[in-house]
Each structure stands twice: as C-alpha cells, then as structure tokens.
C-alpha cells in the first residue's frame, strides 16, 4: 500500500456518522474514497457546498457545481449551497466536526505550518487559517518526512497557519495525537517499528508501553 493510501485509509477511520467534514486538496481529498459503507458524512466544499459527491460522469458536469479548486463535482441528495460568508461561518463558528489538511511542518506544541515557504512558494492561505482555527477537530495528513528530513519538529520554522493546537497527525509511518498537549505516538503503520518513527521525527514523542499497529 502506498503512503497516500495508508494515510487516507487511516484517517477515514476517524469519521463518525453525521459529521460535517472539510477535506483539503491533495492527500486529504482521498479520504472521501474510504468512507465506511452505510456511514452518512456531510462533506463541505468551502466554495459553498455541503453534500459534495464524486466527480460527475462524462458529460454530466455543470459549470456551477464545483469544488474549491474549481473542478466539477456532484451533489448528493440533501445537499445545500450557500455564499462564502456562510461557508466560513460554518468553519469558524465551530460547526465543522473535522477538517483534514496537508502539512509542511507540525511542531511539539501541535502548531501547524502549511501555507507558505517564504520566497519559494506563496500560494496564499486560502481557507486554511480559518479551518485550523475553527474546526472542532484538526487532522493533518502528510508524509512523515520531506526529502528525508523530519516534518514533525521541535518548533516550526515556517510561518504558522494558526497557534491553535491540532489534534492528530497521520503519516505513512504513524498516528500521533496531541490530545494531551504533547505529541503521543498512538499507532505505527504495518511493518514500521517505534524506532523507525522516532528516527524520522525531530519532535520528542511520548511513547506508551504498547503502541499498536494501524488496522487498515
């Protein structure tokens, strides 16, 4: 199983029926492919849609039904649409049960940097700052390292997305929780040892006596 699939499948296990969930671009989007059968999840697109469905069949796209990247989507029965003020009222107002976002860095205090590398990549924060501030639960989906260097580090060197502590990081190596304020190793990926995780992590992790393997 490749890194992206491991991450997306594991995060899908965090879903609960009835949740309102926003998925960022990239790996987070893949989470929608692994919703457990029979579970009712409301996916929000921040451009103004709850009830986002899969990509439409050939010839069935419409120019006014799109995701946050402007790409055609479908709407499930019971979908609703609204303006951008409402969309971010839902996000900022604590109505969003979970957001899944990509990450460049996460530090020991659970702070996320994911929107810019000054001088190199300046895409803009889009809705990321509101999502991290407002969602009830913030889950970061990212590869554990970039070019061999840890992304879970002592202190973020890149500009922060928010000072709010995130809740969970899922990588292709591990599940790390910030529920207790400190990063705690909850699970390792199949075939990955605790030591593998520690070697690839700069931040100091709390490691319980028993660390189970992800069930994927």
């Amino acid at each position: 199983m490749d890194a992206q699939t491991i991450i997306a499948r594991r995060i899908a296990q965090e879903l609960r029926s009835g949740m309102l969930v926003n998925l960022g671009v990239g790996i987070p989007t893949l989470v929608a492919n692994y919703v457990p059968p029979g579970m009712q999840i409301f996916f929000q697109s921040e451009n103004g849609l709850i009830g986002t469905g899969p990509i439409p069949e050939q010839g069935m796209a419409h120019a006014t039904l799109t995701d946050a990247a402007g790409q055609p989507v479908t709407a499930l029965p019971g979908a609703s649409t609204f303006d951008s003020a409402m969309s971010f009222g839902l996000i900022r107002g604590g109505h969003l049960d979970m957001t899944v976002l990509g990450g460049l860095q996460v530090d020991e205090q659970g702070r996320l940097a994911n929107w810019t590398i000054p001088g190199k990549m300046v895409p803009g924060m889009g809705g990321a700052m509101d999502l991290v501030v407002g969602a009830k639960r913030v889950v970061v989906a990212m590869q554990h390292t970039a070019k061999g260097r840890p992304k879970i580090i002592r202190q973020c060197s890149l500009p922060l997305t928010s000072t709010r502590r995130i809740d969970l990081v899922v990588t292709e190596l591990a599940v790390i929780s910030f529920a207790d304020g400190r990063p705690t190793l909850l699970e390792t990926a199949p075939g990955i040892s605790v030591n593998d995780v520690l070697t690839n992590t700069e931040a100091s992790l709390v490691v319980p006596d028993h660390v189970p393997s992800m069930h994927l």
Partner: protein
Amino acid sequence: MKPIPLEEAVAMIPDGASLMIGGFMGVGTPHRVIDELIRQGKRGFTVYGNDTARPGVGIGRLITAKAIGKAVVSHIGLNPETQQQMLAGETEVELVPQGTLIERIRAGGFGLGGILTPTGVGTVVEEGKQRLTVDGKDFLLETALRADFALVNCSLADYLGNLAYALTARNFNPVMAMATDTVIVEANHIVPVGVIPPDQVVTPAPLVDYLVTND
C-alpha cells in the same frame, strides 16, 4: 436599476478603479465583463476577489493582461502568472484569509466598521493589526472593505434587478453586491418580474445599479 449594453457598462469603469469581482476559481465570475475590460484596454485596477483563478480563466485573464495593480485575494496558488508578477514586483498581492476577506467585505456592505475574528491571531496576518480580548479570548480587529464597483455574476436576474444564484457560483457575489458604490450585474438569464419567487431572491433589486443586457 438601469439596463445597459456591455460596452457602455465597462466604459463607465475608469483606469485605476477598485473592483470587487465575484467568483471562486472563475466559477461565478462575470466573464463577459472581464473580456470587455481587456478589450477596452482598461488597467491599473485594485481587485478584491477570492483568488486569481488560473491563467486564461476569470480574474486570471486580467492578470495575464497585466491590468491589475493590486490584488487583494486569499489564494493565488493555481495561477503561476500571478506569483511571477508578484515576485517580479509587477503586481502587488495582499493575501487575506478567505473567511476574513469575505467578512471584511460583508462589514463594508452591512455598515459595520469591522469584525473581531480569531483567524490569524499569532500569525503573520496579525502584523499591523489591533488585537482585542473578549471574554478571555483573543481576536484580531479586521476592518471593513469597500470598493468603487462590484462586478457580479448571477444565474437569474429579473427586469427590476432581483438576483438569484446557482449552486457554487454564488460564493462572493451577493456579499460584494452590498459593498460597492456601483453594482454592475452580468446575468446568465434575464427573466420577467415575478419569475423569481421572493424567497429565492438573494440580492434584492434596489442593490443593483446596472444590469448588462443580452447581445
């Protein structure tokens, strides 16, 4: 509301005007108005919008035409031309969190001086802003935004200027239609009065100054 041919509507907009332009990655953007702005060679605009779309799409067409002096947007990541012009110092870009941008525009249209948002506290977004504490929680004071013209796209307009929007093409449009001195509307369909039921009107007619007529 006054019906107006496309060419005349755009001729009213001077070089250097501030424009709020609806749309999200080009969806719900008034494409005919943008094309005509380029055809008439207008330039030097300050543009408020969610994003600069992609090259050749929506606000991205104004970027390619180098018609924008300053863009106040939340996202330029899908338009490499915007990033190039920004790094080359040709176009000024001010990045604003999306939820803050839409609330600042709403404040401008709703007669509020600003809003207190938790978004951006402790980040670079806080620079130069006032931090206020309410009930022990920190917020940034984000002030109202207004502009000279709103360029609005909608699905349906009636002969009075009542507007209804379709699906994800609504986005910034109805909020911007509140926040500028002059509101110019490009409707996908123009219909008789009474065709849009009162509960489905999102922008009431008195807000609209000009409705671009069909060719």
